[in-house]
């Protein structure tokens, strides 16, 4: 099974990847956060390290993952994404913390 996951990126990462507000990635098998991020980085290698640490693969502290009005940031990256994401009805949102000067 292949899912088309819509991902909404923060402005700086859209500029870096040269994309519009939303990108889509094709995820084979169970669509999890990890699988979606793996596909995103494979398609846009310049994003490697910007959302997840290059070595630990942990989410960067000032970024969060939202979907369907829920914060998925502390869920296991191997949990299946919500159905609305898998069906392409809602985007997976990568959100930068509103902080700093």
């Amino acid at each position: 099974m292949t899912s088309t996951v819509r991902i909404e990126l923060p402005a700086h990462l859209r500029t870096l990847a040269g994309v519009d507000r939303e990108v889509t990635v094709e995820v084979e098998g169970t669509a999890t956060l990890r699988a979606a991020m793996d596909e995103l980085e494979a398609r846009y290698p310049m994003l490697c390290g910007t959302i997840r640490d290059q070595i630990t693969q942990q989410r960067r502290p000032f970024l969060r993952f939202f979907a369907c009005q829920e914060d998925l940031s502390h869920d296991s990256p191997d949990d299946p994404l919500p159905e609305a994401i898998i069906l392409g009805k809602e985007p997976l949102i990568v959100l930068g913390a509103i902080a700093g000067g």
Partner: protein
Amino acid sequence: MSGVRVLVGTRKGAFILTADGKRKDWNVSGPHFGGWEMYHLKGSPADPNRIYASQTSGWFGQLIQRSNDGGKTWEPMNNKFVYDGVPGTHQWYDGTPHPWEFKRVWHLEPSLTDPDTVYAGVEDGALFRSTDGAQSWQEMSGLRKHGTGPKWQPGAGGLCLHTILLDPENPNRIYIAISAAGAFRTDDSGETWKPINRGLYSKYIPDPNAEVGHCVHHIAMHPSRPNVLFMQKHWDVMRSDNGGDNWQEVSGNLPTDFGFAIDVHAHEPETLYVVPIKSDSEHYPIDGKLQVHRSRTGGNEWEAMTKGLPQQNCYVNVLRDAMSVDSLDECGVYFGTTGGQVYCSADAGDSWNPIVRDLPAVLSIEVQTLR
């Protein structure tokens, strides 16, 4: 037609300032990478159109950018900096062991001869090298593992490797400096390293004469005399005439010997520039008067250069990598401030003019002399 290209890294992007050899009329390009912290940009001496840039962010981590056309276009390069082996620990601010963690690239130093070879000084203090134009990075771990690494402790800005000096006469010799570990030298292309801090005195550490632990802010060298080094330490301006084996203080008549930036005239190896800063707790000029101090005697005797610089109500800082010189016939000197000004002196420091006044806080300045 000769000219200059000034690469400016700021808290909110990079700017490229260009002018002909008169250095009067300037073109300003930027911001490049708007909104990102640009810690350092530097061009390859072997190919001036090859420029490397360190782009970083508290949100999105570290990126490395490379230009092959003098900064007109850029491409993101490999940004994976992995410590060699099991990283171990250094000291934290409170003296407890703390794991080595990569945070950012403070300084990029392209090879003197090969455009594809570039060194990166990173926080937490380590040296990396790429030999494929920043497509991959390998740690030169002999530095971090030479023995004193577990004793290194971060300065207020972090455990940053901020200075990399390549010896133009001896390709096996590299000098580096880390705040607040001190200065180190390799004579075998990075396989082994030794601390070169004898003569430094830092009264704020338990042993003021310790082998490591000194807060070195910056080191400068004239390419014609690579054994002669000039250092702006946390406090004290220092000089070594034997490749760092011994240092002596040359602060002389400076109004304060605290500061960050230091550089050497392009054609006069005994002419130095520093920007005295009031103290370690007040990072701005004394009495609100911005002054570059110049020594034509290799230190000790200093004169204040003030013409064209604000002499009242000026409370900016000049950071360690924010001073550079060009090598035109009349040496140009440049520095940037945390207030966003970039000043140029086209007459070796006698007089100054702002190229720009209102950039974001300037983190670094590098000048390319184009012929």
